[in-house]
């Protein structure tokens, strides 16, 4: 069974391009375009990994992260935060809130793959 990865980002094209990527790596990519939508999806589907954009209108990535970490059935899902600004405070905040890793856009595909693999416990 292919591992499920949930992409949460308000930019449609980012989502689209990432889906191409992830599928090419053999993962099943599902998406949500807002924090609220993501939480809805999470009610029915439990992904093995989440890629979460920070800068989103409405509920920000941090809010979603906090929300997830508060729920028993969701808090163990590893989360990779993605954002444009590489502000240290943001990174620290993210990691403190419980993110497993942190990326800036544009991301390096090779690095991303390596990180996903290590988080999911797969060999390189």
């Amino acid at each position, binding site marked *: 069974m292919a591992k499920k990865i949930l992409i949460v980002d308000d*930019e449609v*094209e*980012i989502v*689209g*391009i*990432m889906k*191409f*990527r992830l599928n*090419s790596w053999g993962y099943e990519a599902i998406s949500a375009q807002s924090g609220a939508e993501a939480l809805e999806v999470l009610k029915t589907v439990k992904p093995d990994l989440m890629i979460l954009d920070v*800068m989103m209108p409405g509920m920000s990535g941090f809010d979603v992260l906090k929300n997830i970490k508060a729920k028993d059935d969701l808090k163990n899902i590893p989360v990779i935060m993605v954002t*444009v*600004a590489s*502000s*240290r*405070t943001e990174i620290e905040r993210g990691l403190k809130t419980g993110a497993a890793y942190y990326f*800036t*856009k*544009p*991301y390096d*595909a090779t690095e991303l793959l390596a990180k996903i693999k290590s988080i999911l416990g797969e060999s390189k």
Partner: protein
Amino acid sequence: MSADRDKLNQYIYFKWFVIGVTAAAVLIELAVGITDPLNVLALFSMLAAFSLTSLTALFLAKRNISPRYLSGIMLSVDLSLTIIAMYLSGGPESTWNNYPVFFIFMAGYIFSLSAAMLTSAFSVGAMALMFMLEYLSVLPHFWVFASRNDYWKAPQYMIDYLIGLAILFFSGAVMSGVLNRIVQTNQVRTENSLRESESARLDLEKSRQALLSIMEDLDRGREDLEKKVKERTLELFEAKSGLEKKVMERTDDLESSRKAVLHMMKDLKEDMLRLQEVDTLKSDFVSTVSHELRTPLTVIKEGVNLVLEQVVGPTNAQQQECLTMVIRNIERLTKLISNVLDISKIEAGKMDLQKQKVDVKALLENLAASFGPVYVKKSLKLEVQVEDSPLAYADSDKIVEVLVNLVNNAYKFTEKGGVVISARKIKNFVEIGVRDTGAGIPPEELPRMFQKFAQVGDLYVRHSGGTGLGLYISRNLVEAMGGIIKVESKLGQGTKFTFTLPMFGEDGKEGMNGKEDTDSR
């Protein structure tokens, strides 16, 4: 004077006493029958004679004749009368023979011991003469009174008698002298005590006067004091009024100052709010721009990569070459955007540095390790030389950013040889250097190296990846961390960039500011 007067009076009183007693005694004798009327008559004649002298003396005393003088006269007269009476009453057999002792005593009392002695001597002498004359029958012997013994004929009797009389008289004289002395002493004592009491009275009077004057002085002093107190009270009151007025003035001043300060504070608060708004706007701007630029770039990069990696279908060699160029420029654009965003952050003051203890040696070794492969590919050496294991107090990510920029530049401009990354301690800061064996930089270009879009002829910008902003950003980062960056170069030999960072001190913070130290060099 009055003493003499007193004595005269006493003498006269005494005589009255004696006269009275004798008269009484004689009358009693007559009554009893011891004596005869002839004796009585003779006796009373004597008494009358004595009374006469007293009265005369009294009469003359009223006429202001000296009492002392009168006493003397009376004494003499009385004594003479007594002696005559003695003679007439039988001489040695007379009973009057003792009587001179009274006058002797009086003489001593009124006058002096010498007078008494004199009187005694006179009396004894007179009587002795009388007896002798009688014995020799020169004077006839009279006996008026009863006793008719013949003692006047017996010399031994008369001598004994005379001796006895002498003893009596002189004793009387002595006693009168003693009495006189006593009286005198008393008088003197009385006079002395009178004098003393008088002088005491004078002293008392003086003391009283002195006391009065002291009291006057005290009163005056008191008045002065009261006056002074009044003056002082008035002064104090005026001072108090003055002070009160001053206090009110100051309070008013303070109040207006306070109001001014409050006003200022309100202005300041408004300014602060405005600044905060601007600040927020800046942050928002930077992140918004960042987001807006990077999002499309991500899509572009990933899209092209997907095609290039043949994930979405096969591609031929030409397509691959074309797309590779695209990828390269996407990366260049990405870097430029990063740099521009960094600069805008720096200039907006939004570059946040996390200063901490940095192990410089470890940092340099890690960096060298990541650059290693690329250097090997170009057959260039990459060395790390670190002395003393220095510790810096700075932001390690920013140090890496600076070094990446410098090591990348060194890589680009070096065709043979290699690059040495060094670090050492100098005074209170850490000096990091990147030296290459490249072509070098012309001296005229050196001053502009750290400016925006600095170009070294065509070389600098043309080499791929250069944005012209790397050194400008590096300089800002180094200076923000408290250091200084500089460059030395020799054409044909190579270039060395060095920058300093504050050293990590024992108190957990930076030792001395690296900037200050290099200034002094």
